């Protein structure tokens, strides 16, 4: 399997000379679901935002499908095949579902057909097309956010804690849905707090702590790693937070 997204020696942060991420390396393989876990404040969201072009990068590079996209403006990412689902504020609440989807479908020549496909994939959205997105339930909101990210047929999708704030049952559904999306060919980089659930659906896992790579490996190995189990699946807290 080839890499669709390659991150090499990435340094990034919100303030000049104060990098949050230090020398982060990561590879996302074609068609895989790779999860990033780590304590609060580890820099998971920062990493996703740096890839998406929202947080400035001070060193290292981001390569998407063989093309260096380091430092490209976020609004130029979507046409290159990179979609980003933010942790919060990932839909436009005052617009209707239809308008939210229309925003991202705009540039597609086959937008009507694509809209139908999306509504077939996410039936609850089809029933509420003319409702304001702010009136959706938490799970439906994530669904809309994912549908918007998928609309332009990205090759890589970055998702920041799609299960945050959802009940365990709905969270599991959202993660199952995420897993099923890889069947359509999209490769997904998924940040999760919900470690057990994330490892259940992921192929590969990276653990981030204090802005650095801590550990990585196939999800099932990480799941059975005693140290990881003690830190993330047991009760003990890491000092990194």
């Amino acid at each position, binding site marked *: 399997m080839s890499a669709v997204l390659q991150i090499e020696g990435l340094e990034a942060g919100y303030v000049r000379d104060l990098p949050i991420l230090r020398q982060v390396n990561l590879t996302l393989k074609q068609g895989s679901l790779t999860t990033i876990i780590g304590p609060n404040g580890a820099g998971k969201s920062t990493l996703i935002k740096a890839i*998406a072009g*929202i947080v400035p990068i001070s060193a290292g590079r981001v390569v998407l499908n063989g093309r260096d996209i380091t430092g490209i*403006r*976020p*609004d*130029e*990412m*979507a*046409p290159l095949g990179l979609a*980003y689902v*933010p942790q919060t*504020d*990932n*839909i*436009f*609440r*005052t*617009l*209707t579902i*239809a*308008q939210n989807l*229309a*925003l*991202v*479908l*705009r*540039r597609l*020549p*086959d*937008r*009507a*057909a694509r*809209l139908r496909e999306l509504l077939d994939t996410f039936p609850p959205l089809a029933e509420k*097309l*003319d*409702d*304001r997105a702010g009136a959706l339930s938490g799970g439906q909101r994530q669904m809309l956010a994912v549908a*918007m990210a998928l609309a*332009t047929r990205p090759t890589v999708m970055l998702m920041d804690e799609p299960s945050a704030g959802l009940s365990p049952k709905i969270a599991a559904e959202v993660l199952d849905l995420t897993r099923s999306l890889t069947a359509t060919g999209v490769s997904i980089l998924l940040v999760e707090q919900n470690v057990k659930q994330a490892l259940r659906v992921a192929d590969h896992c990276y653990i981030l702590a204090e802005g650095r790579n801590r550990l990585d490996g196939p999800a099932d190995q990480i799941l059975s790693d005693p140290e990881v189990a003690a830190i993330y699946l047991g009760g003990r807290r890491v000092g990194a937070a």
Partner: protein
Amino acid sequence: MIGLISYLAFFATMAGILAIAVLGLNLQWGHTGLFNGGVVAFFGAGAYGTMLLGGPPEPGQFGGFALPYVVALGGGILIAGVVAWIVGLLTLRLRHDYLAIATFGVAVAFENVTRNADWLTGGARGLRGFPRPLEAAIGDTFLYGLFFLGLVLAVLLAVYLGLERLVNSPYGRVLRAIREDEVSARSVGKNPTRLRLESFVIGSMIMGAAGGLYVSFYAFVSPQDLAPILTFQIWAMLIVGGAGNNRGAILGAFLIWGAWTLSGFALSRFAPDAMQLYTGSIQYILIGVVIVGMLMWRPQGLLPERVTKTIYQKGAKKGSVIINKEVI
């Protein structure tokens, strides 16, 4: 009877001119979330611009190009656009309240320039205007009042229809997305910086058109016409009518202008003599009370923003879906 009709025409002319400015503000604030606290500067740029281009030459005074009316008004609108473009480049990085303060400052600076740059603006004296369009041809004052009202309402209608088209188009949808969340708009591939500037410039040109009509009606402009209260009146109109709804903007303009006129009349008529000096201040307080009261009890305004329905149209161009009567 003729006196009453003539007065009503005068009232509606003023309300209609203000409604045009409110529509401009509605594009900026209602649809794009740009808190323009300096409406009067763009109204004024259109007003002075129209005057300089269309007015008669005067010794020692810049301007007085005596251009045909349509050219003068169009030029005034363009000047308002250029001023907005420069102000926008400088201030649109600011958010909400900061943008409001910066643009308010611009309006104060603008008024000061008009007061002091005698060579350009005639200073405190102001600028004497040009004969009103077609006034000589129509002759009769009463008929002319109706004609000018017709002109104002025609411009108002054109601006309304144009804006309805714009805000219900994909472009308008992006503006509302930016209004809600710029970072998210960016991450779905939009460029908020450019779109905010465009919306600001278009809205300000509409305000400039209102200013141009205003000075051609009075055939005179002076810094007195650019008092900060005008900005607040226009804001009150939008808030009362309903930000995000163009019909609300027009309704608000007529209601608030009616209330303003009536309160002025009532105060001058019934307020005790000792209070007569302060009737203007009382009106200021009333405007403030209306804004605050509305924001507390009905922040969405009398005609709230509408949720538009998606229409899937059978005969639409292949591969298109109609949303808001618009192809997505």
